[in-house]
């Protein structure tokens, strides 16, 4: 029995250590974000003392930087991409799950096989393409390429295949159109899958870096990660400001994650992973 107790103790000790490793840095980030520049790299204990705290850094991020503009851009791009992804991946998933047409298997296989193509190979051609359309440094250019994600189609298809066929067969006999079946029968029962796709896309779009950093040139088209990424060069030593800025970027995804944790985990487990 004693040995078991000891094992338990070790187990929780390891667990606690791991937890520190995984969220400790964020706590450090938070304390730097409310500290004054001079305390940042001094004695770490100083960071924990309330008299040294200040929320001025957050005010500075908001007032001195084009943070509002970047926030708007990020929100706009992310929301459009999320809504479109949810709608179109459900639509396409429905087709692949329920409709039969020549070339369906081939098409689906083709889509899935493209998942292993590295994103970086698409960068140069996509950029040239956007340049020819004169869409460099525009919202359209930033949004269009990520309106639909193949992983999401896959996820929706998997989910729709689990829905029993009786309902739609009855509806078909009643002369319902496919769009109505999709809209009135499939969508209402697919909340978990739709939520997973939405959350998943939101997080991906919000954090996307490679495409906006390449396509957005002027500050007024930056997304938050790009803007804050460049701040690093400009405010090299102003760590409290940088940490406040980065913490603010994290908040939306963090909140969504904490609220919808269940769907997150389901989504990852079902799709098996990121692109």
């Amino acid at each position, binding site marked *: 029995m004693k040995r078991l107790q000891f094992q338990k103790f070790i187990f929780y000790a390891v667990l606690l250590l791991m937890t520190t490793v995984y969220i400790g840095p964020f706590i450090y980030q938070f304390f730097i974000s409310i500290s004054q520049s001079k305390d940042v790299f001094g004695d770490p204990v100083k960071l924990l003392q309330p008299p040294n705290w200040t929320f001025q850094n957050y005010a500075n991020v908001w007032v001195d930087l084009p943070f509002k503009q970047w926030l708007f851009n990020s929100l706009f791009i992310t929301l459009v991409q999320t809504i479109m992804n949810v709608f179109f991946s459900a639509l396409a998933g429905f087709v692949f799950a329920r409709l039969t047409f020549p070339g369906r298997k081939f098409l689906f296989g083709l889509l899935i096989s493209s998942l292993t193509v590295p994103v970086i190979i698409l960068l140069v051609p996509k950029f040239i393409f956007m340049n020819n359309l004169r869409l460099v440094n525009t919202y359209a250019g930033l949004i269009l390429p990520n309106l639909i994600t193949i992983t999401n189609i896959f996820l929706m298809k998997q989910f729709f295949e689990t829905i029993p066929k009786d309902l739609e067969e009855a509806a078909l006999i009643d002369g319902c159109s496919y*769009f109505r079946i999709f809209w009135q029968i499939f969508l209402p029962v697919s909340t978990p899958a739709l939520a997973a796709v939405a959350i998943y896309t939101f997080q991906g779009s919000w954090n996307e870096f490679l495409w906006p950093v390449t396509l957005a040139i002027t500050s007024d088209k930056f997304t938050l990660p790009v803007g804050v990424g460049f701040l690093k060069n400009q405010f090299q030593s102003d760590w409290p400001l940088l940490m406040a800025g980065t913490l603010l970027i994290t908040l939306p995804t963090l909140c969504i994650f904490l609220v919808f944790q269940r769907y997150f985990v389901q989504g990852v487990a079902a799709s098996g992973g990121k692109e």
Partner: protein
Amino acid sequence: MSKLTTCWRYVLVLSIVFTFSGCQSTDTKLTRLSGWSSNPVEEKLVAGVLADFHREKPAVNFKYEPIPGNYTEKIQLMLGTHTAPDVFYLRGETAPSYMRFNVLEPLNQYAADTTFRIDDFYPALLKSFQKGDTLYGVPKDFNPYVLFYNKAMFGEAGLTHPPQNWKELEAFSRRMTKDTNGDGKPDQYGLVLEPTIEMIMAFVYQNGGDFQKEDGTLGILDKNFLDALEYYVRLYRTGAATIPSDLSAKWNGECFGTKKCAMVISSGWLIPELRTNYNDVDWGVAELPVGRQKATIVFTNAYAMPKESIHKKDGWQIIDYLTSQDGLKSVVKQGLALPPRRSVAQNLGLYNDPVKRVFLQSAEFARTFQTTLPERWYEEASVALQMIYFDNKTPREAMEALNRQIESGILQ
């Protein structure tokens, strides 16, 4: 079927509306002016001068759009993607690649106006933005390398004047390098040099060498180049000088400010640091010690216009104002920039200022360090210097490697 078509139409309209709602391309009615933004103070300063311009020429509709992050790359990207601003800052060091790509508007015609007085600019600055006789940029400010020295340390060592030549530089530096606590490591150095190609080039120019010669061939294996480089490296290897990283500093100005050394080669950007962060240092500036000839490196920026711009007339009005007596005066008065026009410096009495005088005089023999090599040469040069400083290669070995790398054509 009808229901489906309604739905589908709805989706189509939605997607089209959305697609084009995002399409607002860059505003074409305004004349856009862009520069880097090194700090908010500078941005406000520029905005202030532009407000003056607006009062004077209300007919010109313009917008100031500072560009954060990798400026040089961004501007070139914008030129390539037809989104370039109508007037933008151009760094002297990067000017050759723009001129090579033939994307800039020649300015000779505009500048020919007699009231503009192009001959008032320091010739060394103009030269940085010329290809042949064609002018592609109007200088806006400049910063030459000068020697900063700590007066107290000089006094302590019994030195009465800053070093005049290479020999004195080495001797003085040795005299002021000392180990006061006896741990075998000096805790005060005479001189801190940076292992960067720009700083080395000041010595190369003084020695009559060049990185790339007039005919475009490399000069890094020539005697004049190698002698200067060897002198520079020897200062480090024999302990007469050190480099910032050996003192755990980010740059040599930090070493100077924290009184770890008596001399550094630096420029205008060190002055605000000394005034705000290290105000207990008693410092002076002098022209660089002279080699075979007087020379120094100058960092200069200009205003340029893209060939593609559709607002060239208004663009020129902006340039004209910003580089006029009034425009320059207000920038110089508020900040620390040096005016590219000799007359402005004279009118403001800058030649009577013991610090600014040194900078202005240096402009007479200064040169911008430029090459017409493909962009990657700079990274390769840094790698070659790393080989010297961190891998213990001889300067000749490193330059031979660099020469091979550039000649191989891989960088093209």
